[in-house]
């Protein structure tokens, strides 16, 4: 069931979907870009959007989120979970790498104990992917089993074929949504051929590479090489940007606020780049910067694969683009002093 839609009709399509879903589209907000609630008309993102600075994980795992609130009565406490808005959501234009990041996050949030906050939002959301035609120099998704047109982790996939988007339903969710959508044309064989060509062109535009062969063993073999880690992390200023903006980073902190008798427990993004993250009253196992950056790299390329059989990096390149001191994870991975 492959369809197509004229680019100038995207506004109409979103209006139609808006009846059932809250729609989120790439938006500019101050100096940054992220997925925000659609205003009902603006589709100019089709012209400027390459990828958002703030990853779509923020829609499922917000930077700050209430876990429950409580009321103090004398010495007793009544706890209450936040009301769910129950609203169905649709994210329009998510990039393949970021959709893959959500699939990676699903594993940790489902593991052992289910995380109700993340999973309830995830279940309520339809992902409409948009293939990349203009990847950044810092993108390296093709080294991690994905590519700029990868439809593996979305419900509906769009491919730019000139004046139109080819529209494929990938999951059952996507199929039923397309079946209930009016104003779509059937794609022809020629359209599909054009899409294939566009996808091949995009694929060739991703030129940055990492070699992931035996990466777990290679990282393990130089885990204790302090000189190496110190050298390659010397310029890092421990700002945490590369983790906050990473679409697969999920670390969080939990804190309480109590004003008068009303309290709230909330969680907020945290980062292994910050010393307080592991600080205990008497000791800190990752006091030194090189230990923390090593944790970031090893978590993505060694530990997460050991636990979930997938590298927790999609090659989205955000950590390279946004780092204030031009630290580059691909250079680290390429220069490991492997001892075999």
């Amino acid at each position: 069931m492959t369809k197509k839609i004229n680019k100038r009709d995207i506004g109409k399509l979103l209006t139609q979907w808006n009846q059932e879903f809250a729609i989120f589209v790439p938006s500019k907000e101050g100096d940054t870009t992220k997925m925000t609630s659609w205003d009902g008309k603006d589709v100019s993102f089709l012209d400027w959007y390459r990828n958002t600075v703030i990853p779509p994980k923020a829609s499922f795992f917000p930077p700050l989120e209430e876990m429950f609130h409580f009321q103090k009565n004398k010495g007793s406490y009544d706890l209450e979970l936040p009301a769910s808005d129950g609203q169905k959501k649709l994210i329009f234009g998510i990039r393949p790498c970021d959709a893959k990041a959500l699939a990676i996050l699903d594993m940790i949030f489902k593991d052992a104990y289910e995380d109700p906050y993340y999973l309830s939002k995830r279940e309520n959301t339809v992902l409409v992917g948009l293939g990349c035609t203009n990847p950044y120099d810092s993108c390296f998704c093709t080294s991690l089993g994905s590519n700029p047109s990868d439809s593996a982790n979305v419900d509906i996939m769009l491919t730019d074929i000139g004046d139109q988007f080819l529209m494929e339903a990938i999951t059952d969710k996507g199929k039923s949504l397309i079946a209930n959508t009016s104003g779509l044309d059937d794609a022809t064989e020629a359209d599909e051929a054009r899409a294939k060509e566009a996808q091949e062109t995009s694929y060739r535009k991703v030129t940055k590479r990492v070699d992931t062969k035996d990466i777990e063993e290679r990282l393990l073999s130089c885990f204790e090489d302090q000189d190496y880690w110190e050298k390659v992390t010397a310029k890092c200023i421990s700002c945490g940007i590369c983790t906050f903006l990473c679409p697969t980073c999920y670390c969080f902190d939990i804190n309480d606020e109590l004003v008068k008798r009303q309290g709230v427990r909330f969680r907020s993004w945290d980062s292994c780049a910050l010393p307080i993250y592991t600080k205990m009253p008497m000791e800190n196992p990752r006091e030194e910067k090189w230990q923390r950056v090593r944790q970031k790299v090893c978590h993505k390329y060694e530990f997460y694969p050991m636990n979930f059989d997938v590298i927790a990096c999609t090659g989205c390149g955000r950590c390279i683009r946004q780092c204030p001191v031009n630290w580059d994870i691909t250079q680290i991975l390429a220069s490991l002093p492997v001892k075999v």
Partner: protein
Amino acid sequence: MPVIDISHRKKFLAKGNVYLPHIVVIEKIIDETPTVRTFHFNFKDEKLRKEFTFESGQFAEFSVFGIGEAPFCISSSPTRSGHLEFAVQRVGRVTNALHRLGVGAEIGCRGPYGNSFPLDFLQSKNLVFIAGGIGLAPLRALIWNVIDNRDKYKNIDIIYGARSPADLCFRYDLDSWNKDKTVNIVTTVDKGDESWTGREGFVPQVLEQVAPSATKAVAIVCGPPIMIRFTFPVLEKLGFTPKQVITTLEKRMKCGIGKCGRCNIGNLYVCRDGPVFSYAQIKNFISSEY
């Protein structure tokens, strides 16, 4: 792929929202040392009092509402019902707030979390317990369990140390174990005072002097990281293989369920895969990350 045994990892079945604590009530407070207190507590909900079960070695997240949450091992033994216990050293925000509470105060508790001591593996073995300071808290949850099933285990050695005589926790336990003829206990302090007539010396040194045999034995170690780091080599010297050494670890924790990320040692999470580990599991990473 590096081989690390994670077969003990458990699949938990949680009902409802795992982050939502139960209300428990403090029933008794014992001053162990100037900075350590034991709290006896019970669930406010009658049904939970009956339903709640745990195993020696597991921990829970306790919260003072409005201040925050922190993990503590359950320091009582599941063989002794009626109430539950946890011990708190006053070191930070949450622990200070806990120390300010009195009997009758309500706090939050969610758990039990983590794995537990491998009772099957310990059966019919000689057990060598090595603890420092408040590190005795998780071990006493096991020691009482073992004593309550005494015929299942062979010799019991306990080596317990603290910085000074005033820092020895659970003296009432030390007294009963001293009286128990089936238990060999050695207590030591780093530095004694005028009234101290017992041993002096750090736990790893005393362990070397006591030199328990490694034959058919398992060492169970808990204490500050520095003590653990120096104890492993001594045990190796005494002939204990990494599989014969079990430890329960402490890290900064928040979620307690393997999500928030901070308590890892390599690919293992102290909250989810531990807190009980064999030395064999963690020795690749322990030198520089613990």
